[in-house]
């Protein structure tokens, strides 16, 4: 019965109040009747009965308060009331909801990136115990290198005390013959036989690798497709589930079958991996994320080849072993290597162990956190704006609140409608924000830079929804705090004494000013952040990559090394490719290189001058590139001295090199490098002399943002031809390269050649700007919204101020103030508020922008131009926001505003 009543109370509040009324009335009537019976006059009798209750409305309020069910009912009623209020003020409602939706949408979208990239655990067994080892050559300023087989084995043996096991992996492309005489390109991974056990993956079909599969063959296999087909024990392979389905249609009979590669080793398939098994390494580590075929590494200790870096070590820490202990062990291994090998010593060889996830996101984490911070700033600005809107509205209702407080309503009863309204606004804002975030996440997929790992994981999942809900609740609490605090302590006397219609306005002024100052400060910081990114972006645009990307078209041709068994055969193949490509209409130049600038690849060798002959520690490192004659002409890289390669220089036995200006300066100082000789160590363990025939302008090979390392260029013939893999065509005029023509040309040369990674030169340069552009774009959007919101906030505060000071302005005008003075008064207030906010913003920005220093290119975090420019920009916003209220103030008719008093 009681429960039923509680529920029914909820829906019939009016009925409940009537019931209380009736109960009290019946009491009064009975008392009156008794009083009359006791001899009182009816009037007196009734008066006596009523007086015993005191104030009837207070009484009723107190009785109603006792009904616990009723307070639920009140929230319901408040909600109805709020909804009605919101409907009645569509301007306010739309502004508040849109503001919140923007704040919540933006921060939720960014959170989806944080969630996918930084928070979600890696899909391996117990992923927190997985550790990645990377090699740093500190002196050369090269980091995150893979290991040579000898260094890998030394690392594995030297840290056995801390690791359950240490696996190694590397990946590359290979060609597999299709049935029709052409080849298909696949990605293979070469993994130590324990790799899947370390990662915690179980083979779903067939068997895992065994120790037996990894026993070294006498000659160590050079990576990949170029391996000769001589090895006696078969190479053992496990297929990815996707490749198993794609190539073999999920036919289990493939187990035990031999899989042939074009020009490479044949492999025996022994197992199939579970679906969606991925290899997560940072994108610039050049590790294929989804290899098609996994090959058991017949790893041998190749001490003579410590510069052949390939293996990425993945270790699983023992229970109880800490990363610090393991790192100490690795440091010892590195120290030992530096002691024993001069190359390691001069290069500053060291080993860095990192948790796998940390290693994966190290490069992008600062940018993501900066964006997340910006998203939260935006959310706070949105809160401030809505709080101010609510404050203005609450101040208009202050008299009503004061009256209700006087009638006995408790603080909670006064605050409750505000809180209910806040949650209602926040709920609608959150829903709309989720829709925005959903759209935003789709855009993020298109915009996100390639160096963002686990990009495919960015989606709306439970965590993202939870974040949005939390953000919604937090915003409701934050933006209802100030108005609720105001409402809970209405100053009755002041409110009632005032005779004008808007008595409370003066009271909330300071609070509103504070809120708007905070808002200005926050949005100013976002403006600074986006300004710094913009300057970085401009700086990047100005970088000359050392070649002309305009109308350049690039792609890879794979298979030359696999098909051509002799240097002559390979040279002929390269020659044929060049001729066929040149025959495509509109092609001006054709050239090839390996690696190609800005594709993320680089190779290093050791070089020295004569003094290195006696003192091997004088050898230094430089990057090198293998090119065809005509490369510099095709790339339009300036020749600074000497000459470029001719066809004659491309023949075997010609020991000519071209170096860039950085290396020339390092090797010969101010002297001309042309005709001089340098020592290099690459083809043989012993250094050999090569002659410099030309000096060219430095090309940016690894990054636009950084100048990069020195470069030495070899002709393709120097390494026995066929090493060039990246081709580039310069198109004439406005001809566009046709992918199909390229494919046909290459097929005509040899059907087993595979073309991939077709890209325009501009796209290459573009993708080198990707991460800067991404951060810039997001920050700029945030800053634009923030600036707009701050402007609106400022406008709101000023126009309220003008309304509240109407009579004061009237008096001023009556006393002789001119319209210009009034105008200046209001604009001055706007500028003052902005100046205070900007000052706070500058101080905070000086601290915070330091966190984004590694996102910046050629700009200091405290760049004075950005700070000055953004201050100016913000003052323009402030003037714009003040203009309308100021004009309204100046246009006030003193007679009218005084008469309204």
């Amino acid at each position, binding site marked *: 019965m009681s429960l039923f009543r509680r529920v029914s109370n909820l829906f019939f509040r009016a009925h409940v109040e009537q019931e209380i009324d009736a109960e009290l009335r019946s*009491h009064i009537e009975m008392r009156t009747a008794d009083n009359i019976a006791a001899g009182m006059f009816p009037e007196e009798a009734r008066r006596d009965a009523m007086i015993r209750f005191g104030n009837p409305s207070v009484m009723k309020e*107190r009785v109603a308060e*006792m*009904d616990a069910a009723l307070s639920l009912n009140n929230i319901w009623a408040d909600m109805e009331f709020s909804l009605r209020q919101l409907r009645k003020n569509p301007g306010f409602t739309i502004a508040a909801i849109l503001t919140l939706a923007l704040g919540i949408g933006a921060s939720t979208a960014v959170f989806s990136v944080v969630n996918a990239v930084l928070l979600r655990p890696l899909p391996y067994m117990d992923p927190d115990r997985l550790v990645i080892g990377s090699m740093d050559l500190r002196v050369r300023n090269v980091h995150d290198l893979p290991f040579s087989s000898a260094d890998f084995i030394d690392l594995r043996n030297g840290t056995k005390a801390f690791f359950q096991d240490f696996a190694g992996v590397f990946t590359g492309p290979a060609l597999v013959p299709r049935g029709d005489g052409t080849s298909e390109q696949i990605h293979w991974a070469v993994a130590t036989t324990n790799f899947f056990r370390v990662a915690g993956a179980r083979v779903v079909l067939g068997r895992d690798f065994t120790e037996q599969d990894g026993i070294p063959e006498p000659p160590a296999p050079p990576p990949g497709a170029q391996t000769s087909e001589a090895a006696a024990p078969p190479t053992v392979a496990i297929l990815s589930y996707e490749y198993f389905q794609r190539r073999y249609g999920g036919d289990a009979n493939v187990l035990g079958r031999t899989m042939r590669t074009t020009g490479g080793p044949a492999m025996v398939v022994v197992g199939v991996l579970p679906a969606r098994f991925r290899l997560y390494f940072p994108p610039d580590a050049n590790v294929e994320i989804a290899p098609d075929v996994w090959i058991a590494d017949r790893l041998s200790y190749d001490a003579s080849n410590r510069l052949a870096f390939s293996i990425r070590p993945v270790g699983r820490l023992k229970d109880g072993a800490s990363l610090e202990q393991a790192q100490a062990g690795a440091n010892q291994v590195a120290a030992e290597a530096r002691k024993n090998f001069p190359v390691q010593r001069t290069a500053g060889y060291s080993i860095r162990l990192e948790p796998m996830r940390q290693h994966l996101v190290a490069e992008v984490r600062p940018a993501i956190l900066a964006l997340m911070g910006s998203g939260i700033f935006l959310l706070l600005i949105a809160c401030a704006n809505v709080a101010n809107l609510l404050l203005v509205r609450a101040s208009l209702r202050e008299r009503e609140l004061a009256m209700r407080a006087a009638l006995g309503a408790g603080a909670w009863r006064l605050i409750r409608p505000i809180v209910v309204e806040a949650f209602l606004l926040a709920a609608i804002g959150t829903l709309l924000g989720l829709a925005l975030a959903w759209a935003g996440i789709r855009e993020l997929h298109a915009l996100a830079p390639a160096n963002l790992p686990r990009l495919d994981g960015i989606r709306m999942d439970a965590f993202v929804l939870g974040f949005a809900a939390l953000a919604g609740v937090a915003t409701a609490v934050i933006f209802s705090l100030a108005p609720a605090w105001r409402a809970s302590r209405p100053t009755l006397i002041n409110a009632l004494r005032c005779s004008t219609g808007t008595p409370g306005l003066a009271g909330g002024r300071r609070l509103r000013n504070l809120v708007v100052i905070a808002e200005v400060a926050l949005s100013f910081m976002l403006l600074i952040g986006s300004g710094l990114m913009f300057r970085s972006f401009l700086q990047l645009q100005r970088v000359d990559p050392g070649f002309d990307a305009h109308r350049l078209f690039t792609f890879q041709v794979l298979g030359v090394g696999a098909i051509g068994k002799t240097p002559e055969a390979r040279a002929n193949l390269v020659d044929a490719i060049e001729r066929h490509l040149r025959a495509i209409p509109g092609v001006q130049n054709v050239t090839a290189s390996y690696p190609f600038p800005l594709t993320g690849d680089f190779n290093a060798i050791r070089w020295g001058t004569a003094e290195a002959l006696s003192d091997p520690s004088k050898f230094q490192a430089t990057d090198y590139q293998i090119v065809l004659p005509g490369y510099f002409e095709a790339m339009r890289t300036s020749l600074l001295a000497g000459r470029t390669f001719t066809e004659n220089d491309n023949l075997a036995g010609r020991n000519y090199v071209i170096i860039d200006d950085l290396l020339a300066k390092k090797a010969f100082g101010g002297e001309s490098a042309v005709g001089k000789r340098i020592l290099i160590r690459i083809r043989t363990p012993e250094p050999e002399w090569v002659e410099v025939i030309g000096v060219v302008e430095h090309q940016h090979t690894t990054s636009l943002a950084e100048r990069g390392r020195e470069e030495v260029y070899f002709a393709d013939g120097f390494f026995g031809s066929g090493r060039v893999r990246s081709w580039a065509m310069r198109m004439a005029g406005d001809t566009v390269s046709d992918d199909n023509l390229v494919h046909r040309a290459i097929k005509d040369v040899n059907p087993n050649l595979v073309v991939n990674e077709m890209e325009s030169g501009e796209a290459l340069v573009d993708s080198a700007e990707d991460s800067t552009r991404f951060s810039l774009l997001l920050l700029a959007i945030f800053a634009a919204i923030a600036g707009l919101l701050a402007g609106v906030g400022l406008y709101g505060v000023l126009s309220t101020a003008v309304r509240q000071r109407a009579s004061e302005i009237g008096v001023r005008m009556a006393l002789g103030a001119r319209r210009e003075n009034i105008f200046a008064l209001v604009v001055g207030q706007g500028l003052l508020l902005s100046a205070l906010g900007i000052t706070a913003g500058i101080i905070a920005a000086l601290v915070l922008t330091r966190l984004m220093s590694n996102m910046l290119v050629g700009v200091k975090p405290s760049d004075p131009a950005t700070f000055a420019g953004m201050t100016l920009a913000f003052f323009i916003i402030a003037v714009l926001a003040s203009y309308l209220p100021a004009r309204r103030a100046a246009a006030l008719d003193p007679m009218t505003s005084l008469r309204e008093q």
Partner: protein
Amino acid sequence: MGKNDLQGTLDLLVLKTLSQTGSLHGYGIVLHIQRASDELLHVEEGSLYPALHRMEQSGWIHSEWASTETNRKAKYYKLTAAGKKQLQEAEKNFEQLVKGVRAILRYA
């Protein structure tokens, strides 16, 4: 000690009254307490009704509209099982309060 406050005393008076009379309306409770205490105790209407509604929400008493002898509509309150238990509790607390206060008064 926490329960030995004045509000507890009003609750005790109301619960006891209802246990003695079975079922009574608010005005009747006021009169009963006055009469039973030989005019020593006066319950204020301003406190009684909030207390009644609070006790009803706590499930100690239960109300029903009915007619008085003079054929007037009034809301009658009745003890529930929980209310009977609460009454025993309140009586015990009150005895202790009286004992304690008396001990302090006798202390010399």
